[in-house]
């Protein structure tokens, strides 16, 4: 079996908090000794309540957040030892899609500029034909190249964000609540798009969400986080059929179903 695309071993992150006069700075332990891996071609869902540390954990996977301790290996390479250039190479391979596309895209750049900048940042040039093909792969037409973010809807912008993530053909995409800011009818489009990328291009996913039903449908495996730790992990079907940890059980039970009460 080949090496996992992402392997985190005993990773912790302590954020510094403001200390007061005479008070010791204790810091806040956002992630507490977590080990987790994502296999090649796999979609791992990371669920938990707000403040459970799931976003911090996800950001440590591509070096956006530096762990206080522990090791992160992507594609077999230790992230901690990387130079600036090394990090840049890492981020070709590990792309990210954020929750709010309007906040994660530059409002003063057209879609063309946004996409071209990805190539430029990595010392590559690109052609209009390539950009058009990229947009088509996320279901957008060539006419989007000239548009600014405010000229597109939330769902279209999230497609642009996915296109930007796909630009350098990454092996792993970290998606942090990629559909939470979208309308219900559009959310399904984006989720289906991500699932297609996994199936057709073999891209691995670390999918962070607070929405259990979304994770249920679009992850092969699930890890449940609570107060900085992973409390339960297993195949998606099993976790939701018979949740073992009280935290998982509470989440499953509290999730309202679009169903009539029995």
């Amino acid at each position, binding site marked *: 079996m080949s090496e996992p695309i992402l392997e985190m071993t005993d990773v912790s992150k302590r954020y510094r908090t403001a200390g007061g006069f005479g008070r010791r700075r204790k810091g806040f332990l956002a992630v507490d000794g977590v080990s987790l891996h994502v296999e090649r071609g796999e979609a791992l869902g990371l669920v938990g309540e707000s403040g459970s540390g799931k976003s911090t954990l996800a950001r440590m996977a591509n070096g956006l957040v530096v762990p206080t301790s522990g090791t992160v290996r992507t594609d077999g390479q230790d992230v901690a030892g990387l130079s600036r250039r090394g990090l840049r190479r890492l981020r070709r391979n590990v792309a990210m899609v954020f929750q709010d596309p309007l906040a994660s895209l530059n409002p003063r750049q057209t879609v063309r500029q946004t996409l071209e900048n990805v190539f430029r940042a990595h010392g590559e040039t690109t052609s209009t034909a390539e950009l058009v093909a990229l947009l088509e792969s996320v279901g957008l037409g060539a006419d989007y190249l000239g548009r600014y973010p405010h000229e597109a809807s939330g769902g279209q912008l999230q497609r642009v964000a996915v296109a930007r993530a796909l630009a350098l053909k990454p092996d792993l995409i970290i998606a942090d609540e990629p559909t939470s800011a979208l309308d*219900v*009818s559009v959310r399904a489009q984006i989720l*289906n798009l991500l699932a297609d990328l996994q*199936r057709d291009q073999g891209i691995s996913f670390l999918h962070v969400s*607070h*929405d259990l*039903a979304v994770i249920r449908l679009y992850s092969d495996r699930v890890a449940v986080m609570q107060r900085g730790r992973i409390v339960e992990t297993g195949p998606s*079907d099993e976790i939701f059929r018979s949740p073992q940890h009280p935290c998982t059980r509470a989440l499953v039970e509290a999730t*309202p179903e679009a169903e009539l009460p029995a």
Partner: protein
Amino acid sequence: MPDPVLQVEDLCVSFTSGGVTADVVRDLSVSLDGGRTLAVVGESGSGKTITGRAIMRLLPRGASARGRIVVAGREMLSADERELRRARGFDVAMVFQDSMSALSPYLDVGAHIAQAVRLHNPSVTRRAARARAVEMLDRVGIPEPADAVRRFPHEFSGGMRQRAMIAMALVNRPALLIADEPTTALDVTVQAQILALLRELQREYGMAMLLISHDFGVVGSAADDVLVLYAGRQAEYGSLRDIFDQPAHPYTAGLRAATPRLDARLHTGGERTRLRAIPGAPTSLRDAGPGCAFAPRCGLADQVGERCVVEAPLPTVRPTSEGGGLHLAACHLDRLPAPQEVAR
């Protein structure tokens, strides 16, 4: 039979900017009895929030409402400022999604509630109003209310702030509560608690509740009746059962199919299960032509033909399940085909 607590007739809300007037809500009629919950479901541009605000007469500058809104016997659209002050908080109160911006950072939680008490009953002393606030905080499940009453909004967690806002809204026992996405910013476990609290208080006070939400999960666990809005117009209205079991509007059926469910099977025949997405993005009334606003996204429009493009459908009566009340849908199709026939 007693009069409904809320009666909306032919409500139109329009915005004027730069000399141009555009409707954002058109021809909305609905009524709601005491003790019942009506969920207003829709996406961006559907007009659900504006409808809630029109009922409170809290429309933003440049917006105006026509038609008729009656809350607990009071005509809201023709009411003057004095009457409105009387109505707001007393006949109808509101709970918002973002509790941090709905509460004043300069006032402690008790002051918010006490103010609401004294505004409507000037004879109540400060001390008595404060005592009422403690009582109310206790009622909404805030631990150590006598202490919590002196705390400021930022000292509360999101769930606790939401409870405090509910206490403030309900302290005068309004006949109608408008809850605009009350749990959207909360974790699921806290969401379940807040929904349970709202249900409990509703039963206790016998009030009517207008629950504005985009989430069919929340709707399913809280509503008696459902109003589905699309681009400022009524798409479908019916009992929860009818809306879930026999939706008559393609948009309602589409929204349900696009909502991921926890009990969904992950794989069917080796393929991962996919949600049935609705193509395109939600529009607003401003961008809609003369026909049905949903037609460009509707997989069934070609079954009807040109009529969908040239003529906006009016709500017509649809079959109901046993014991179901009124069921209306605004669609030119008399009957939706079974889900498997709608394959794209």
